[in-house]
């Protein structure tokens, strides 16, 4: 038993250390952006965009600007027929404006990646192709495997996959991250003639949103969509009509999506510790029994 006990303890010890390391690693990766930001740069807020749906007139200049900035075909923004159906972003159009008829008149809503604080797509990506940058945007990289796990994991169904291509990409709004790195503003914000899009650190955006809400009490709903939904998003919306009437899901909860897989992921090192320990133990016990039996049979 000398040898077996030793190897048993070795495995157990190794498992504890290994499991601890994995546990620490997995715990720290769940909040990628924040962690990175705190470690490498002085504490900052994620940058975001406030969308004031009451101010949007549906001119779609943002659609054209976005297409140009991303080298995609520019849509015909004068063509009104685009508003006939509720649209989704596509592989060639990273953001869309939708028109909703409400009892307060027409409301136009900009739809694109929400750049969540704790994105489900980032937690899903096994090669870190989806990354939450320290500035705030969630971007896609070419080391992607095309597994499309980010797609079922996004509460807003945003990532779009180029099925038609043999070298497919995942297309979604990047909040013009490459422009942000150069100190510029996202293309949509720069081109909005109505000041419906405000760009800045998230805290300031929330302050601005509250200012607009409480300056004219009773006009805006006292809810900033994206402040707490799915743990908070980079895009924030204020509106004068209920959000479910203008194409928003209001049943998503306030728990960040990566939290849903956290329980399972945390159990992994525990299983890798306990199972081998138990199995080695049972194996030793049954071996003892078998040897005893064999010994008895061979005696005479």
């Amino acid at each position: 038993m000398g040898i077996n006990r030793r190897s048993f303890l070795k495995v157990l010890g190794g498992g504890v250390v290994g499991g601890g390391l994995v546990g620490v690693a997995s715990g720290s990766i769940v909040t990628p952006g924040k962690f990175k930001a705190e470690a490498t740069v002085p504490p900052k807020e994620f940058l975001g965009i406030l969308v004031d749906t009451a101010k949007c007139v549906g001119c779609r200049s943002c659609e054209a600007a976005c297409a140009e900035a991303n080298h995609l075909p520019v849509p015909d923004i004068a063509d009104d027929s685009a508003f006939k159906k509720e649209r989704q972003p596509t592989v060639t159009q990273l953001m869309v404006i939708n028109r909703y008829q409400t009892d307060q008149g027409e409301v136009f809503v900009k739809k694109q990646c929400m750049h969540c604080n704790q994105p489900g797509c980032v937690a899903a990506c096994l090669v870190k192709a989806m990354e939450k940058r320290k500035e705030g945007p969630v971007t896609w990289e070419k080391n992607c495997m095309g597994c499309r796990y980010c797609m079922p994991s996004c509460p807003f169904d945003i990532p779009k996959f180029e099925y038609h291509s043999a070298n497919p990409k995942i297309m979604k709004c990047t909040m013009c991250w490459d422009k942000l790195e150069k100190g510029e503003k996202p293309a949509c914000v720069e081109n909005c003639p109505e000041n419906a899009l405000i760009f800045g650190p998230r805290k300031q955006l929330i302050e601005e949103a509250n200012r607009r809400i409480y300056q004219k009490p009773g006009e805006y709903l006292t809810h900033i969509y994206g402040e707490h939904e799915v743990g908070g998003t980079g895009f924030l919306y204020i509106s004068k009509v209920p959000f479910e009437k203008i194409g928003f899901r209001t049943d998503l909860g306030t728990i960040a999506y990566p939290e849903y897989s956290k329980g399972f992921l945390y159990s992994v090192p525990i299983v890798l510790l306990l199972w081998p320990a138990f199995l080695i133990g049972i194996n030793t016990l049954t071996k003892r029994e078998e040897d005893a039996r064999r010994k008895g049979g061979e005696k005479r």
Partner: protein
Amino acid sequence: MKEIAAAGEIKNLKDFWAFIRSELKPKGKLLTPFNVISLPIILVGVVLIVYRLVKGLGAVTNLSQDFPWGIWIGFDVMVGVAFAGGAYILTFVVYILRNEKYHPVIRATVLNGFLAYVFYAGAILLDLGRWWNIVNPVLGNKFGVNSVLFLVSWHFLLYMISLFIEFSPAVAEWLGFRRIRKIVGSLTVGAVIFGIALSTLHQSGLGALFLMAKDKIHPLWYTEFIPVLFFTSSIFAGLSMVIFEGTISHKVFGNQLTHEDHASFNKIMLGLGKACAGAMFVYFFMKILILIHGKQWGLLASPMGYWYLAEILGFVLLPCFMFLRGVRYENFSIIRIAAILSMLGIIINRLNISVIAYKWYVPLSQRYIPSWMEIVITLTILLIEVWVFRWIVNRMPVLRKSPEWALEEETHEKATPLRKEAPQWKASAM
């Protein structure tokens, strides 16, 4: 060219190649009904696979932005892996609990498991949009350790290696490599223990993939306990597959088996049937517990609710009681039908979570329905797997007995450790 009849005659590289060459020749009739039907499908499938690689996923599949995962994930991977669950359970029973009753089927089960994982990894490769990056989770410096899929992919890789180690004694016996046979034989228990831990995690992990699709899967199927349900159902899925595949193998490869093997297989079926009945009983109760915990009983009175009831009553509870009856009355036909029903239930369950109850609110016209090309490619992968299985079973000691020298090794191995240990235990054991 020297004719190498038995592997034991290999003395040098020339002999080795002669042996391999002789083994590559087909054994048995070429124009069987199975071959005649499967070969054209395989050929068409291979053409389609090339087409898919050249033209992209959209040219061959009906996947869409709303339904990114189709039958290659929902069926090939998820159902295939569940059915391969027999390997981790039976290796536990035979090598850890040392129950010799199931020894006759262990090699075929491990072989099936190994081939399943290899071929379903192939299916994944086809499903990946940027498949050339498949090495990224393994090599490189951008490991998404926060991803459940990262864990699943690593486990697939490691488990394939474990299963290969568990199966390698048969390969060593086929090639006549005695030293290697001894070495890999000693690695078996370690590989088994590792494999069981890995299996637990990736069987449940495949379910955990859907935890973030919380608002897309119908509440009757979405629960935080999906991983536990997947793990539990993999038990009876795997064992039902052993019953199914064992029955077919015993008919097809009957010439390799003795009368004793046939008799013992019946006993094995009874044992497997008992285990399936027990596991399905527990699983059924788990489903009810989760239904109550989630307060979903109101949803049962809806079309999806009826479908849910059909799944758990017709394909879980019913086969559970069929197993009960079959085992008690030693009616092997009932046991076999129950195995098929439970396998159908697993297929339905995995497809529900990935494709049917997934975005159930999307109208039928926009839903994902697999294209004929996807189905043909799926069949191709399955059929090639069956061909490889047949090739191996006809040549290596999987169903037939191991060569004499290997059997002697085994009994010698089991006997020797005793002498090393006896002195230490004298004082403490009794």
